[in-house]
Structures are given as C-alpha cells and as structure tokens.
C-alpha cells in the first residue's frame, strides 16, 4: 500500500473511531432503560374493599417511577371479585389497539370507544375488531391485601 492510499483509508478509519466513541455510549444510554422489566407484585387495595360480583376500576403506582412521571406512573386495572378469595383482574387496554375499555355494569360488557370493540364479562370478544380476549393479570392475596403482578403495556402480539 502506498502512502496516498494508506492516508485515504486512514481517514475512513478515524471517522469510524469518532463515530464509535460517540454513538456506542449513546446507544447504550438510550437502549438500557428499554430493557428494565418491572415484575413486582403491587398492592391495589384491601380484599374487603371489593364486593363480590362487582367489577371495579383500581389503579396502582409504578413501584420505581421517574420523579417527574406524574400521573403517568399510574396504571389502571379492572378488578372483579368472584368469590371469598377469588378475583379476576383485567388490563384496561383493548387488545385491538390499546384504548381503554369501559365496563358497563348493567349490560355486563366492556366497550372500547376507539373502534367499537366489545368484550363479554369474562373478557372474551363479543364483537368488533379485537383479535383476542382482554389480557388478564396474575394476582395473589397477602395479609388481606390484593396484590397484582406488574406487566408491560399489553402488546397485541404476545400474551
């Protein structure tokens, strides 16, 4: 390799060094928070606060929110007490595109305002575009409190 073509290649190599030094930390800085997975059990209220047969909207705070998250640290859930120690916990997000479904107690249906998805009381699809039933949450009772498992914003692809 002569001096001229060496210098030509060196220019590209040096450019690569500058790009790597700047972009790799930035890529890590931006991507790392994306893989922080919350999987804790969070308290959504006393078991006695739920009447059997009633479907109630509850919310909980992200256990480790950013200080400036404000209201967006909250997540809402539909909780139905089905027995003394039995609950069904639904995500509020429609499985079509994530809009919040609204429980109609008399009609015993969940209605979605965006594209008209309708779910039966057990979360199965009664009509409209949703591709699958409402997502359910894992729950446990501990010391008279109802705890619900954190989960990612329900995604249409996976469970």
């Amino acid at each position, binding site marked *: 390799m002569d001096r001229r073509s060496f210098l030509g290649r060196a220019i590209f190599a040096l450019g690569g060094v500058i790009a790597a030094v700047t972009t790799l930390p930035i890529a890590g800085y931006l991507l790392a928070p994306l893989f*922080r997975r919350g999987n804790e059990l969070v308290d959504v209220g006393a078991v006695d606060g739920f009447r059997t047969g009633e479907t109630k909207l509850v919310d909980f705070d992200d256990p480790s*929110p950013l200080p400036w998250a404000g209201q967006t*640290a909250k997540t*809402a859930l539909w909780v139905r007490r089905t027995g003394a120690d039995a609950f069904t916990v639904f995500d509020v997000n429609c499985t079509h595109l994530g809009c919040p479904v609204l429980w109609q107690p*008399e*009609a015993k249906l969940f209605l979605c*305002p965006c594209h008209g998805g309708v779910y039966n009381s057990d979360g199965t699809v009664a009509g409209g575009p949703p591709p699958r039933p409402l997502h359910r949450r894992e729950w446990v009772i501990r010391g008279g409190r109802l705890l619900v498992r954190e989960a990612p914003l329900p995604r*249409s692809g996976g469970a």
Partner: protein
Amino acid sequence: MRVLRPLWDWIESRFELDGTVGEVVRHPVPRELARRVGWFYVFGSVTLTLFVVQVVTGVGLAMTYVPAPNSAYDSLVFITNGAAFGSFVRGLHFWGASAMVVFALIHMTQVFLFGAQKFPREANWMSGSLLLVMTLAMAFTGQLLRWDQDAFWAVVVAAQQAARAPVVGDLLATIVIAGQNVGGATLTRFYATHVFLIPAVIYLLIALHVYLVLRRGISDPPKPDHVVDPASERGRYASALARGIPFYPLPLFRDAAASTAAVLLVAVLALVVGPPRLGAPPDPTVVVADPRPDWMFIAYFALLALIPRGLEVPVIVGLPLAAFAFLFLLPLVRPYGYRHWSRRPLAIGAVAGGVIAYAALTFAGYAAPWAPYIPGPDAALPSDVTAGLSATQARGAKLFQTSGCWSCHRVEGSGGRRGPDLTHVASRLERDRIVARILTGGGGAMPAYAGTLSPEDVGALTEFLLTRR
C-alpha cells in the same frame, strides 16, 4: 447609496456572493413559467416557507413548554391562557403544520400530474417523498406533545400498532414508549425526537432536495405530445433552457406572493379558530376517554376500524410500508414516456382514487359509526318513545337503555350507530326473530345476551321493541 458602494464591494470581494447566491437567484427557468402556468410552480416554495414558520413558532413554544409528564400539560395551559400571544403562537404552529401537510401534498400532486418526476428528476421525487414522511412524523409527534388524554392514548395506540409488526413488534413498541409502560421516560423522548431528531433530518433532506432542483433545473410544463426519452431528454431540456427566463424576479415573486398568502391564511386560522383544544389532563386511570387523532390521521384511524379481521397485520404494518415504497419508487417505474396528464389516464385515476379514498375515510372517521354511544347518567330515551308504554314495555325500554342495546342501536335519532337503527324494527322483524337475535347476537359485532338477560328481561325487551313500528 453611493457611500454604501465601498462596503458592498468589500462584502462581495470577501464573500463572493454574486457567483453563488446571485447565481441561484438568477438561474434560468423555462420561459413558459412567465405565463400563467407558472403559478402551478409555487407550491414547493410555499411548503418550505411554512416549514420556516414551524421552526420559528416551534422555537417560541419550546421557550415555555416543559417536556416532563407531570408539567407538560400545565405548561400548555399556561401558554394557551396565560402567556402573551401564547394562544396565537400555538395556533400558528398547529395551522402551520396542517398547511404544511396540505401544501406538500398539493406540491406532489402538481409534480406528478405534470410528469416532472420522470427522467432525470427521479431523485428529486424520492427525496421529496422522504420529506413527506418526515412531515407526517412531525405532525404525529407534535400531536403527542399536547400531552392531554387524546395524546396519552395516541401514544398507547402507536405502541400497540408497532407491536403488531412480526418478530420485532415488542421491541418496536418498547422503543416507542421508552420502556415497558408509558411513563416518565416517554414524553422526553418524543420531545427530543420532535424538536431535534426529525428536524435535523428535514434540514438535510431540504438541502438535498433544493440542490437537486437547482442541478436538474425546473421542469418545463409538459406538452401533450412530449415523450421523455432518456437518450435525448437532457439535450432537449438544455436547448429549452437556453431560451429561458431568470428565476428573479417573476417566478420568485410568484413564490413570494403565494407563500405570503399561505402564511396569512395560517395567521387568520390561528386568530379565528385558534389552537386545538386541550383535552382533559393525561390520566391512565380515567378510562372514560374518546381518543381521536388530529385531522390528518383520522383517515388512518377509520381504516383501522374498518379492516376485516385477519387482515389486521397486513393493513396496520404492511400498508404504510407498501404506500411509502410505492411513493418512493414511483418515478423508477416509468421514468420515460408521456409527461402530459391527458396521456396518462392511470396517473389521473391514481390521484383521483387517492383523494376520494382519503376524503371518504376522513368522513367515516369523523362520523365513527363503529364507536359505541356511552350514555351519561342522566341520559334518557326520547319522550315520544317512552310515552304510553305499558309497565312491561316500560321495563323493556329501561333495559334497552341500561343493557347496552342503546350503545349500538338508534331509536328515534338517539343512540349508537354500530348496529341497525331500531326505530321501526317491529315492521321488519317478527317477535321470534327479535328474541333469537337478542339471545344469540350476530352480525359479527353483537354479543349474545342469553347469559346476561333473564328470560323475563328478554320478554320485556321484546315487548318494548315490538312497539317500534
């Protein structure tokens, strides 16, 4: 003026503007542009001017806007109601964005119908189609920065749409909301994307686009018999340009006049109509929401409701990609051949079809017949519907209101539009058919009520519906 002469000479000797900027301003354009057809050539400059308006008003808004989820809404309330000229600046930014989308589309339509995207200007078109995508990305991210209920749920919907992509869906959704849920990290990323990232791409693309326009030259208005032949087109254009006129003053004046009209229109809309209404503050725990995107995305919102089940992934993920690929590669499909619209029926059909489909979907999106009617606590059926009912019929009317029927069916102009209007249902259906439909549902949308309503309830509801003749 004579005193300024030495100063100008010094500037010219040091900056050499006459050979650079002067050259651009005086560059020759086809002489036909001196005629009235020249007015068709203003839309690119109008779009560029509107982009400058967006940069200026956007910088102004960023001086006050706080891109933190717990403060963004309050800062917007302050900009709208408290800051001097704040409402007007927000209005300029919104209507400027709307006008930018509209004029970019008009510009593309004009270029396409004049056949100007053909050889040798394919790259002009391709860089322009990227600019359109970036403009729409600005419109979408800008709407999210409004950070009210609609914006919050639009973020959720965007994440769910991204999640539909095969294989990489969940990763894309995680990138959109910057984590596993919408939260403290989401808004700052959208903000940085809207004010730094996309604008940087737009600056580069504008530089490329304008460079290409200057290097390839403004295309001349097509004559019906003009056939682009790559072997001779450059020579033909060069000899046409040799008889051309300078860009300054007439064509540039027209650009300035049209741009002024567009900016004044934006200012009038900002004053008279004002900025988009701020919805309720964003709150994931308030599920009584009715999220709607801004007007440019209403057609897509409607499409998402209307696609048949099973075609969702192809439409949600495939259609935008296919539409962009089609637009981007369009000039490469037929870089030669007739330029004049009268010889390109397919081109006219494509434009007309696109406009009609977009308008029809926008209309459907605003009417949203699929969206359920959610009655408020004091809502009641019209009094002439409930007048003179027997006790059983009245109980049926009550069930109609409370059991969800009303959410999808209209009676005398009140109720949802998802299912058939039941104002005269008894004149179409007999008792048995009505009972069967209530029990089993149907039509792909109606739930079966057999497990929800008791036989007495179904009987009462049927008695009420039989009064609807």
